[in-house]
């Protein structure tokens, strides 16, 4: 067994078992799937964000190699349904027919013996477009005179909702009012491995197998089956090793469905491997929000009401399964943050634009909402002339209020938010920093900023019932099979795309059953061998799948206890389960012995042995259904050069409380990884979308931070255990991405507070600083 036994207990720092194959080059990604007679697909994509298609002409000799919308007449679009009132879905065609609605939208698919040959065929397809004025800006798109992206619609809104609580009118005369307009740039999740699919029709069984770089194999199967009108039992989706998901691979793409259609209709094997250019231009549209917020407060900065208009760019179509509703409505529901706010009124909307369908990206709307709230809190602090951390302290939900029902109906579980903020403030030594800051001269300005957050995770059914989307989670099921040799196989429908799931789940099995890690196999990501699952999203696996594995282990233990008691000729009440064996005064029985008897010597079983045997399928669902709430704060000190706009991160501190950590080593990896992506949001990443958006079509233009660009953050961990989960763990995977942008923006605004300059957007580039100074001068 790798590592020490104590490392494999819950809370141990076991090294990741899956890493060996990644380090050895033995991992198998979609592009490694090699099948006989496999043909490659390339797509002819729209070079314009909005246009009427006048003609698509295919040379006669290439007719068999090219698919256009005309070939798909009997095939409907991908339908991302939701039951929310007022939702107007925009179903996504597999190939554009009359119009194109975003740059990169697939118009035709070419089939070649290689990707290069398929692209050569694309070169020979004639395409004539009549350009239309694109709708690109969220605010402009909502204007009544804006061109409609979907001609028959009355406006450019997928959904609009007023989220209210209390009565904001009671705060109309509040002594302090601050207003902020905050924008965040369109981003790309940029996983190391882009999307990909290899789909093969098996003539013998009459079934389709699709290997997809996906986070949710069952949900993808559902989407493919519904779109193509094929029974789900005839489709098997396998997610092999996946090189990063971040939400990007939780939504089904039209290309993936089309490749499945080709495999079924042509009884063959086809592959599409998305390249970086496709990923950056056509693949995603995340994090672009525009929000105006008004906070009314008393003179101590105690918030009396929040009003806001929050708009999320949802792109041209609703992505399956999360739909266009998720981002906009979540953004609108999260603007109170971790603060006790009773009066709340937010207009939330998901706006249609000529951009690719919006896809949730790690954190979904939370980083955007946290940016708005935390920038406004700092603006409020400036207005009441208090340290920003004091204003936060005056408003944070207190431990005595837990469990706390928020203005938007979330039931927060537990935690001492003020105490954690105090830890952060001590770490930053803000008083000392202020003394040094007061003596500064020259072109360098130093500032300190804080952002506080919670992360709701591991949602239950209720939360998604209100959306009514295909991926509404119920009981998450796993199968546990004890093999004849006493080894254990766990089969789960979730999928591991880098988060160490094979290790964490094995730790749960070891913790519950004492079975050596070497004798545990975690199978995941294959609809052919696992119970249905809504997949990996919302930081749910550590809570929900671990909970299901724990329940399965305990059920196996219960069944085995009866067999052990029979073998030892004692009453079950006189048996103890200890050190991986069933112990009585007279001796002990191991799992291995019980497995041998069950499979090879059934005549030794008790007459009342549980007929379900050594295979357990069981499920878990969080109670209460709001899930878990991890929380924390980030603090950062920066130096800004007001002449060049350069920003240096001098110090970065994270305090995070996600309950008990099943594996702190993996948890820290998740925290640092999410933080690095947050740094991208804050200081680097933007995919501007203009009338011709190839401005960001490679990593030369879409800049993600490298290790050399990042400072080394300090990390402190709290451990407020959830009262509701199996071990007290809470969802964690997205948490550290949430507050990075506002912490840095607040630090920069603190540095520039005497220059009359405030930044209310991310990313903040050197040019952003220079532009802000130029605007302030004018």
């Amino acid at each position, binding site marked *: 067994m790798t590592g020490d036994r104590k490392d494999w207990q819950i809370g141990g720092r076991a090294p990741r078992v899956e890493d060996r194959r990644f380090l050895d080059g033995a991992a198998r990604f979609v592009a490694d799937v090699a099948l006989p007679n496999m043909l490659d697909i390339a797509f002819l994509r729209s070079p314009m964000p909005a246009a009427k298609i006048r003609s698509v002409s295919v040379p006669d000799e290439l007719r068999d190699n090219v698919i256009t919308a005309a070939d798909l007449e009997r095939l409907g679009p991908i339908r991302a349904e939701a039951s929310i009132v007022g939702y107007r879905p925009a179903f996504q065609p597999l190939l554009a027919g009359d119009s194109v609605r975003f740059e990169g939208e697939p118009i035709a698919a070419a089939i070649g013996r*290689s990707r290069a040959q398929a*692209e050569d065929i694309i070169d020979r397809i004639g395409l004539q477009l009549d350009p239309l004025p694109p709708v690109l800006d969220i605010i402009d798109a909502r204007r009544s005179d804006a061109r409609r992206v979907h001609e028959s619609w009355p406006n450019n809104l997928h959904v609009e909702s007023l989220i209210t609580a209390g009565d904001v009118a009671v705060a109309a005369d509040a002594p302090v009012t601050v207003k902020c307009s905050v924008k965040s740039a369109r981003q790309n999740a940029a996983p190391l491995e882009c999307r990909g699919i290899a789909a093969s029709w098996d003539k013998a069984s009459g079934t389709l197998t699709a290997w997809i770089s996906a986070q949710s194999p069952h949900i993808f199967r559902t989407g493919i089956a519904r779109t193509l009108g094929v029974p789900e039992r005839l489709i098997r989706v396998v997610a092999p090793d996946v090189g990063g998901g971040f939400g990007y691979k939780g939504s089904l793409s039209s290309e993936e469905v089309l490749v499945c259609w080709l495999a079924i209709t042509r009884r063959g094997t086809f592959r599409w491997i998305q390249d970086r250019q496709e990923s950056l231009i056509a693949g995603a549209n995340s994090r672009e929000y525009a929000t105006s917020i008004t906070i009314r407060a008393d003179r101590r900065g105690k918030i009396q009401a929040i009003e806001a208009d929050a708009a999320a760019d949802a792109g041209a179509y609703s992505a399956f399964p999360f739909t266009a509703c998720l981002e906009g409505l979540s953004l609108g529901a999260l603007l109170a943050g971790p603060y006790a706010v009773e009066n709340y009124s937010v207009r939330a909307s998901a706006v249609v634009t000529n951009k690719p369908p919006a896809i949730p990206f790690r954190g979904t709307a939370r980083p955007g909402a946290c940016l708005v709230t935390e920038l406004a809190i700092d603006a409020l602090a400036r207005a009441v002339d208090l340290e920003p951390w004091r204003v936060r302290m005056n408003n944070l939900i207190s431990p005595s209020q837990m469990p706390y029902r928020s203005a938007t109906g979330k039931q927060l579980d537990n935690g001492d938010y003020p105490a954690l903020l105090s830890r952060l403030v001590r770490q930053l030594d803000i008083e000392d920093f202020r003394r040094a800051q007061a003596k500064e001269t020259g072109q360098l300005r130093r500032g300190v900023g804080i952002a506080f957050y919670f992360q709701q995770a591991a949602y239950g059914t209720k939360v998604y019932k209100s959306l009514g989307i295909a991926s509404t989670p119920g009981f998450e099921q796993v199968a546990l099979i004890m093999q004849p040799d006493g080894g254990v196989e766990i089969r789960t429908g979730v999928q591991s795309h880098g988060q160490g799931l094979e290790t964490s789940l094995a730790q749960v099995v070891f913790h519950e059953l004492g079975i050596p890690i070497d004798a545990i196999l975690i199978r995941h990501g294959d609809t052919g061998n696992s119970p249905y699952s809504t997949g990996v999203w919302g930081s749910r696996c550590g809570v929900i799948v671990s909970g299901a594995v724990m329940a399965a282990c305990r059920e196996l233990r219960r069944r085995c206890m009866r067999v052990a008691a029979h073998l030892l000729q004692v009453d079950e009440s006189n048996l103890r389960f200890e050190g991986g064996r069933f112990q009585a005064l007279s001796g002990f029985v191991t799992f291995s012995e019980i497995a041998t008897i069950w499979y090879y010597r059934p005549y030794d079983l008790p007459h009342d042995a549980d007929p379900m045997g050594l295979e357990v399928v069981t499920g878990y669902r969080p109670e209460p259904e709001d899930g878990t709430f991890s929380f924390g704060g980030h603090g950062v000190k920066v130096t800004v*050069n007001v002449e*060049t706009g350069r920003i240096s991160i001098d110090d970065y501190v994270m305090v995070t409380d996600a309950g008990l950590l099943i594996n702190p080593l993996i948890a820290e990896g998740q925290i640092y990884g999410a933080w690095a992506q947050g740094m991208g949001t804050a200081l680097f990443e933007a995919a501007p979308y203009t009338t011709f958006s190839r401005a960001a079509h*490679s990593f*030369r233009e879409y800049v993600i931070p*490298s290790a050399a660009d990042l400072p080394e953050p300090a990390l402190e961990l709290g451990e407020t255990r959830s009262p509701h989960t199996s071990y007290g763990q809470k969802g964690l995977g997205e948490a550290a991405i949430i507050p990075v942008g506002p912490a840095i923006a607040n630090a920069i605004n603190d540095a520039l507070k005497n220059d009359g300059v405030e930044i209310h957007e991310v990313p903040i580039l*050197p*040019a952003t600083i220079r532009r802000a100074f130029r605007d302030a001068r004018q």
Partner: protein
Amino acid sequence: VKPAPFEFVAPTSLDETISILRIARQGGRRALLLAGGQSLLPQLKERDERAEIIVWTGKIKELSHFERAHDGWHIGASATAARLEEIGRGTPLASIGTSVGPPAVRSCATIGGGIVSASSTSDWLVRLAACSARCLLVGPQGRAMHRAIGEITVLPTDGIITEIVIPPQIDDAELYVDRVGSSRNAVPDINIALLFRRKLRRGKVAFGTSGGSFATFDLDGAQLDHIARQSASPTIVAALRLPSGDDAGLVAALLGDLVRATRDREVLP
């Protein structure tokens, strides 16, 4: 994205290369030179650039020299940034190499390719211009001509850069460089270099901005003193004929930092 089909040739001599280029032109076929591939390969893959013939320069023996002569360093156009780092260790020559892109790029990026594909903010262009480097071009008729780096605007499509000559004053000079952008991997807003000759108290500056400005200018001791005192003063902007608008302040600020850095070094042991 995959490149459109092309014929790949790898000539071993300059004459052979010129001949291939000439014949391609006469036959109406587009031929492109491929050096380290840092610019051309992505363009080919994205089909932004196409050619019937790709001529790889990596085997051309006349492009691989690295010599110190009386008139300075003669560096074959195939030298990579990493090679400059290695051969020029401890000299400003190495500073040119170490300041070109991230390490992975430095292993491939060639000095010749860097000049051919340079934008106004190119690391290669700005550093070599500050060093008063010039390059030797061999045209379609095999005729050689020298051009100062920074003065080249259009290269003959069927010619080739064979070497870069860096004047000998680099041996007793110090190279100071700076760039402003969101990341080391990003195209910078501005790139600037100062070659400082301590004994003579003179400097040569080159800078390029993402707005397309590119300039070089010399500084004497008095100007250096003045800049060290007031980096972004309007006087300097006017005196040095810096670009107007926002770029002017930025150039002046960075120049001030670089000049002050030369003084910091003086007080170091």
